[in-house]
């Protein structure tokens, strides 16, 4: 392909040639001839001749590689296909020149925009000898969750003066997944009121076999001697036994708001980022407790992950969270109507939403509460994100903040455990706040 420089020189040569004829000026014609020769030589021996020779213009170029690049190939290897936010992926790009001619190549391995090159470089200018190969290594830092793809590898060869060049995209792609970052939680203060058949590690606030103290009661025949509380016996003179809180598996439902409005704020600090991180942390905590966890994300559609337990379920949930895109505007009421028939009564429900732009929020959460569900709402405040990013002035912020406080109070009066989650607040703190601790 002609560069602008060669196009300019070519045009200049033609103009000088014609002007030379008009003015009968042989100096002008001579300069034009020298420029023509310069361009012709570069076109003939600059490793790009196939393009210029065919006489095709840039816009007619179909992207097919010419001779100069037909013998260049690339392969890529990643150190990991799944990482967490702020993690690093090591990339090794192998470039091979199969031809008998050495080449000076410009290689750019395309990296998603949100990623940062930490070590090495993805843009390399190299001399690759005949039938040689080389390895390019670099590390990318992945600050945001999502499905990503590395590639294609753009290769360019040009003459030393940059007059003509030939480009080719080597369609070598490597996909990888960035899971949301997780916070280590010690307690979530979320407990089910409804026991399930088999025992697990969750206290359900009912006496039964378990590990945590529930209450004291009088001794009955058949009670284990181990359960006798001797201090209480000494105090009251009656045989008293410790009752323990029954452990059981809970069904935990996580609802993540991924509507377009949830991405309001800077790219790395918005409600969706906080919600996905919180959902990942909560899923890990509950699954670690042997609960069964289900996930629902809603944006332009309602996507659900059925309740299940175990490590595999964690990866399923993390994958869904990694792929959650801020799109659409499905109201929460639709989600509630959809899931209500399928969840066990009394199951804890955790909603992660910025509570914006949805007139059905109150009625939807009222529906949950009317059926005695234990509802916790963590609401990352988009208002704070925007105010921090200086996109809102003080007056606007105060007005909107008041409106938000009114909404939160209204939801709180329905018996919803709700917390206005400010950007610098830890998830555990926000949860404790929501649960009234």
């Amino acid at each position: 392909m002609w560069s602008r420089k060669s196009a300019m020189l070519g045009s200049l040569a033609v103009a000088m040639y014609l002007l030379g004829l008009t003015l009968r000026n042989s100096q002008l014609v001579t300069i034009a001839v020298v420029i023509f020769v310069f361009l012709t030589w570069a076109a003939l021996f600059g490793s790009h001749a196939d393009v210029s020779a065919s006489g095709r213009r840039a816009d007619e170029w179909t992207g097919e590689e010419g001779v100069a690049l037909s013998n260049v190939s690339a392969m890529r290897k990643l150190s990991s296909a799944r990482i967490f936010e702020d993690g690093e992926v090591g990339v090794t790009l192998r470039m091979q020149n199969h031809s008998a001619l050495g080449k000076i190549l410009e290689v750019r391995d395309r990296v998603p925009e949100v990623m940062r090159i930490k070590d090495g470089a993805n843009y390399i200018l190299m001399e690759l000898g005949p039938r040689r190969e080389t390895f390019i290594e670099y590390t990318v830092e992945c600050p945001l969750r999502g499905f990503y793809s590395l590639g294609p590898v753009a290769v360019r060869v040009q003459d030393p003066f940059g007059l003509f060049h030939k480009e080719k995209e080597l369609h070598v792609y490597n996909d990888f997944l960035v899971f949301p970052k997780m916070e280590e939680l010690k307690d979530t203060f979320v407990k089910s009121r409804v026991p399930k058949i088999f025992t697990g590690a969750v206290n359900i606030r009912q006496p039964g076999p378990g590990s945590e103290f529930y209450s004291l009661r009088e001794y009955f025949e058949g009670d284990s001697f181990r359960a006798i509380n001797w201090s209480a016996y000494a105090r009251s003179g009656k045989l008293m036994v410790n009752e323990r809180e029954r452990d059981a598996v809970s069904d935990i439902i996580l609802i993540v708001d991924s509507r377009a409005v949830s991405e309001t704020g800077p790219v790395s600090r918005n409600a969706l980022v906080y919600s996905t991180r919180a959902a990942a942390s909560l899923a890990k905590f509950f699954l670690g407790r042997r609960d069964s966890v289900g996930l629902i994300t809603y944006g332009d559609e309602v996507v659900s992950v059925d309740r299940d337990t175990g490590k595999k379920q964690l990866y399923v949930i993390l994958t869904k969270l990694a792929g959650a895109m801020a799109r659409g505007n499905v109201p929460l009421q639709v989600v509630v109507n959809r899931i209500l028939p399928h969840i066990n009564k009394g199951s804890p429900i955790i909603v992660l939403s910025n509570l914006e732009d949805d007139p059905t929020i109150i009625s939807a959460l009222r529906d949950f509460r009317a059926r005695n569900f234990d509802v916790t709402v963590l609401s990352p405040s988009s208002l704070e994100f925007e105010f921090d990013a200086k996109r809102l002035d003080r007056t606007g912020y105060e007005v909107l903040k008041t409106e938000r406080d009114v909404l939160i109070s209204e939801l709180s009066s329905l018996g919803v455990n709700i917390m206005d989650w400010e950007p610098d607040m830890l998830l555990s703190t926000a949860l404790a706040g929501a649960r009234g601790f």
Partner: protein
Amino acid sequence: MATKSGDTAHLYDGKTVRSSAPSRKKLAGTSSSSGEIPKDAIPTVEIPTFIESLLGGPLVPKMKFLPADKMVQNLQLGCYGVLIALGILTYIVTPAVGTIWFTVTGSMTVASILQIMVVVCAVGTGFWGTMFRDARFLLVSYVLFILSVMRFASSKVSFSQDLFGEAFMESELMLTILVVIYAVLLVMYFELSNGVLRFSMLDTSIRTREVYVMNVKKIIGKYHRSLVINPLIAGTLAMLVLSVNTILPAFISLFSEQTALRMEESVELISVYGVALGTLFVFIIVGGLFILDLPTHLQSWRENKD
């Protein structure tokens, strides 16, 4: 299943629907007191300017150059040398007669002064542009050099100064060589000054770790070789092309001495039109080779040879 918000009105029938807080997304960028679009909302994209792209284009997005490294300094020195030689040659090969200023003023003295001023300005802006690596000054310098050579010459090569003696002035070959050297120097000046910018950009990108260069010496070596070989080839080939009016009679003389003699003495052939005709003839052949896709075959042969 996708559910659009607009299709869900039936869900709210008979229910109290409360309006929620307005969307912050809509407010973003409009709620500030000044009403301006916030700076962080607009991504910064560095696009090379038109002038930069004309001058060979930056290899990487534009940024402020770091101090010149040795390679760039050498190119700058080379550029200064070429610029001095070019200035002198331009002064010699472009007399004031036939220039625009001569036509306008009608005075040889004024035209000569103006012509010298144009050449001096061309050299001066070239020096400035090269030293401070400023593409705008270089472009002005190019334009001034081209402007200085733009004159009505009546097909005759004439010089402003007879520095080389009468014998030199009468030799057609010597005159052609001098003009070709002038033309090659002009093209070399274009290339060297471009090289200063291109390699400054590359060097800056290397030092800011945007680009990694493998086998730097080989890459630079190839550029240096090209700086020597390409002008030599361009000069030689240009000489051949411009000598068509002497080569052609020599070729014809193999068949007819008289016709060859007539051609040698023909005003048309030794005039600029003869040169232009010869040039056109040569480049039609070159064009034909391109149409036959010779470069591709040549490239293919070079790629696949053992």
